[in-house]
Structures are given as structure tokens and as C-alpha cells.
């Protein structure tokens, strides 16, 4: 390949990228390796002793681990379906819309720029036991108990809050893809007498499918690792009914001080993420 710049050479390139590479090695790569080291050890009073696979076996005998795993599955699956489904509907609406599009987009985008804690605080307040405004509407149906104090209710609220916060991401990503669909295709299809649903599945869907796939992977990864908003909304409660694997990790380390177990959990989550990340990179390469 031709070196395409008159004053860009190997040495200059090296100096340009080395600060970033150095930072990434120290802040991302080294801690990732370090958590493997921690996961094989016992940490007591800040001291590390090698413990082999003890952390992992203890974790695999802990029912909380499996229950959290199941909750992560429920959370991520619902989160994924809602983000993709509602996101797609929103994108199609925005794409058809000719007036006020920027205004709608601004409003829909607001939850995304809010912090997780602010979002969580707002959702807690809506469902507050006695004075929550949304709770007041639900009260006649659920015996005047906050929906947040019911295991399934809390899970539903946490999912809804997460979707609320993440929706603009998928919607705008899809909108970007929809705008690449050539309008002439629809016109000729309409002339051929195609119905709307035919046009959607045979034209739009084919073109946006890679984007949907990418968005699904990213959303899945975010779902599995969701933590901030769950903490801010329910702190994993009531009991442990919204304790996903990420919340379990947080509790293990910062509530129970079991850093060895938490490290083992980190390693397992890391492996899941790496696998999904590899799928993602493959898709990126293909597109």
C-alpha cells in the first residue's frame, strides 16, 4: 500500500498512537487481566493468597448465581425485544413524518442524555408507595401496595425504565438506516401493485436488516451489563428480585466485601461479553 501522506511516516505514526495505546493497555487491558488473577485468589484483609478455582466452585454452588442468571435473561430479553420493536416503530414513524421531526427527535432523545441516577430517581418517584402519581392509578388493581415492592412489578418497572432510557438509541440508528432506502424502489413497487406490508418486508426490511442485527447485539450487551439504572431504581430489590448478574456482582463486592467471588463473576461476565463482542466485530467486518 502506498504511504498516502508526505509527512506521515512510521515514526510519526508511532508517536501519534502511542498515548492512546498506552492508556488502553493500562486502563482497559491490564485491569481485565488483573481480574483473572484476582479470581484465582483469596483476598482477606487486603492480602492475596492463591486459591485455585475455589471462587468459581463456590459461585457455581451459589443459588443466587443461577437466579441472577435467569433474571438477567428475562431482563435482557424483554429489554431487547422492546428496544428493537418500539425503536423500529418509532423510526418508521419519524421517517414518514414531514413536520416537527426535529422536535419529536429532541423529546425522544431526552431520556438518553439523562444520567442513570436521575432517570432512576424519576421512576422511583412515579411508583412511590403513597404519593407516586402513576402508582395512584395502579392502586385500585394491586391493593394499594407499591408496584416496586412486588418482585414482578419491580422487574417490570426496571425493564420499562431501561427501555425508556435506551429507546432513542435504536430508534435513531434505525432512522439512519431507513433514510438510505431509495424512494424509487417504493414507487416502482407501488406501480406493480405491492401492498404496504409487502413493501416493508421485501424492500425496507431487507435493507435495514444488518442494522437491526447490529442494534440487537449492542442492545443485548447493554442489557446483560445494565447496572446503574437498576441500582438507582430498585437497588436490586425488593429482596433480590431485580438482582441481575451485574447487580449480584456489585452486591458481592461492595455490600459483602467478597472481592474474590466478585472477581470470578467479573471473569465470567467478561467471557460472555467477549463472545458477544466477537459476533459484533464479525458483523461489522461483513457490513
Amino acid at each position, binding site marked *: 500500500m502506498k504511504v498516502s501522506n508526505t509527512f506521515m511516516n512510521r515514526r510519526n505514526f508511532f508517536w501519534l498512537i502511542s498515548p492512546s495505546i498506552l492508556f488502553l493497555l*493500562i486502563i482497559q487491558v491490564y485491569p481485565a487481566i488483573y481480574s483473572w488473577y484476582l479470581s484465582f485468589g483469596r483476598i482477606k484483609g487486603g492480602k492475596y493468597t492463591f486459591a485455585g478455582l475455589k471462587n468459581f466452585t463456590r459461585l457455581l454452588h451459589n443459588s443466587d448465581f443461577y437466579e441472577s442468571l435467569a433474571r438477567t435473561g428475562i431482563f435482557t430479553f424483554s429489554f431487547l425485544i422492546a428496544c428493537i420493536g418500539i425503536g423500529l416503530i418509532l423510526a418508521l414513524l419519524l421517517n414518514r413524518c414531514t413536520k416537527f421531526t426535529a422536535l419529536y427527535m429532541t423529546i425522544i432523545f431526552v431520556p438518553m442524555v439523562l444520567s442513570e441516577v436521575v432517570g432512576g430517581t424519576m421512576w422511583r418517584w412515579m411508583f412511590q408507595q403513597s404519593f407516586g402519581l402513576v402508582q395512584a392509578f395502579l392502586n385500585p388493581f394491586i391493593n394499594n401496595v407499591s408496584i416496586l415492592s412486588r418482585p414482578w412489578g419491580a422487574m417490570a418497572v426496571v425493564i420499562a425504565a431501561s427501555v425508556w432510557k435506551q429507546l432513542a438509541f435504536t430508534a435513531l440508528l434505525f432512522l439512519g438506516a431507513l433514510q438510505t432506502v431509495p424512494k424509487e424502489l417504493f414507487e416502482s413497487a407501488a406501480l406493480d401493485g405491492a401492498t404496504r406490508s409487502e413493501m416493508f418486508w421485501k424492500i425496507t426490511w431487507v435493507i435495514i436488516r444488518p442494522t437491526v442485527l447490529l442494534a440487537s447485539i449492542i442492545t443485548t450487551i447493554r442489557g446483560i451489563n445494565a447496572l446503574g439504572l437498576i441500582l438507582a431504581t430498585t437497588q436490586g430489590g425488593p429482596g433480590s428480585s431485580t438482582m441481575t448478574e451485574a447487580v449480584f456482582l*456489585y452486591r458481592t*463486592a461492595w455490600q459483602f466485601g467478597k472481592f474474590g467471588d466478585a472477581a470470578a463473576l467479573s471473569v465470567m461476565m467478561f467471557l460472555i461479553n467477549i463472545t458477544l463482542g466477537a459476533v459484533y466485530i464479525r458483523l461489522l467486518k461483513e457490513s
Partner: protein
Amino acid sequence: MLIRSKAQIIRDEFVTHGLLIFFSLIMVFPVALSLMTSFKTKTDVMILPPRFFPPQWTIEGYLKVFQSDLIPIYMPNSAINAFVSTIITVIFAAFAAYGFSRFKFKGSRALQLGILGLMMIPGVTNLVSYYRLGSQLGILSTHLIMVLVYTGFELPFGLLILKNFFDAIPIDLEEAAKIDGCNSVRVLWHVLIPLSLPGLFVAFLLILVYTWNEFLFAVTLLSANSARTAMVGLYDFQTSFEVAYHALSAASIIVLLPILLVFILGRKTFFRAMMEGALKG
């Protein structure tokens, strides 16, 4: 579309806007409710049945927040962590992005994909390591650890945005300037920096929003009250303000205001970045 009647078009418009208004209301409702709550009195927060609008407008909640550590301690901490790490990230990412954009070599793409791959690994798997390493180095509860972590975490994202920007700046411009007798420094100063300013601004805004809002690293790595950020402070208020939801709402509004301003000023930037597939929330 060609064969639709006028009535159909009007019906379509109606349905489209109806649904979009419905979605917009849902999206904005939690924020609007907090805004209204923040202007209620302590007693009006606790009336039954609860009301949306304050029966009596007051800034009692805000006054209560002004007495807390949020404004003198937590907000400045957030600002320092966010600004310092964002500036460092943008500078380093710009160097690297320019390098990758202009110097082609075998393995360049693989290296870039590797760096982007790091973006896919979420913070939660590194939390325990950061805590341990931070405590061994004695830098827990400092600006230093937050700046380091944020910079390391946001670099791949900055790199992704900025590389796209540099790729769009034609190399000929630089070469023409060089032929006209500019040295590298002058090319950088007179050609490259002015042309890439919009890109640097985009990266700056997006990363600033992320770092200001960041909660997870902050809540695990900052325990001293003097080092807490606005998000950690707000999280603590959830328990300490308990039913004082007017104050809690006021604190939420104060904390989100700077970011909302940044977003409204630069919203086109955000939309474009999102539609082009920039990945961070």
C-alpha cells in the same frame, strides 16, 4: 407515494403524528413530573390523591438542595472529572485518529477493530480490578483515578468518531499546503485544525455528556464525601431525603440542567452521531 388518495394521506398524517405525540408524552412524562414536583412544597408532595401540577408554586425544594453539599462539593467534582478527562480523551483520540487516517499499513484495520472491540467490554467487568488497583495505589476518592478511568474508557469512542472525520478531510489539502511551502506544524495549525474543529467539538460534547453522567465508576471508586460527584450525591439523597421528594426532584433537575443545555445546543450533533452508528449513549 403515487397511488394514495388525498384522504388516505391525511389519515396517515393523523396516525403518524398521533402516535409520535403519544410516544413523546411517555418519554417526557417522568422528567415533567420531576420538574413539577421540584416546585411543590413539602406538604403538597404528600397530598392524596397526588397531583401533577403544584397547587402552590415554591422553590422550597431548591433551597433545601442549596443547603446540601451538592452545589459546593459534588457538582464541581463532576465538572472537574468530566472536563479534564474529556479534554485529554479528545486530544489523544485526535492524535491516534489522525494517525490511523493517514498512515496505512498492513494490520491497521485489525488494530483498529481491536480497539473498537474494547468498547464492547463494559465497565462492570473491570470494577473490582479498578477498586483493588486504586486502593493499592492509594488513589481511591481522587480526581486522578476518575480521569484515568474515564479517559481509558472513552478513548475508543473518541477514536471512532474522529477517524471518520479525518477520513472525510481530503489529503490533497494538506499536500497542496505543503507544496506551497508550509512546514508540518503550519499545515497542522492552518489547515488541519480549522478543518477538524467541528469533529473535535462533536467528540467533545458526546464524551462530556457521558463523563458528567457517569455513575458506576464514581459510586464504587469514590467513598470520601469530598470526592463525590453529583451522581453519587444524588444517589445518596435517595435515602437521606427519603420522602422529601420535592428536594430530591429539585436535585435531579439541577444535576440534569447542564447536560440538557449542552444537548439542546448541540442536538443536531447528537442525532447525526447516533444515526451514523456512533455507539455510546
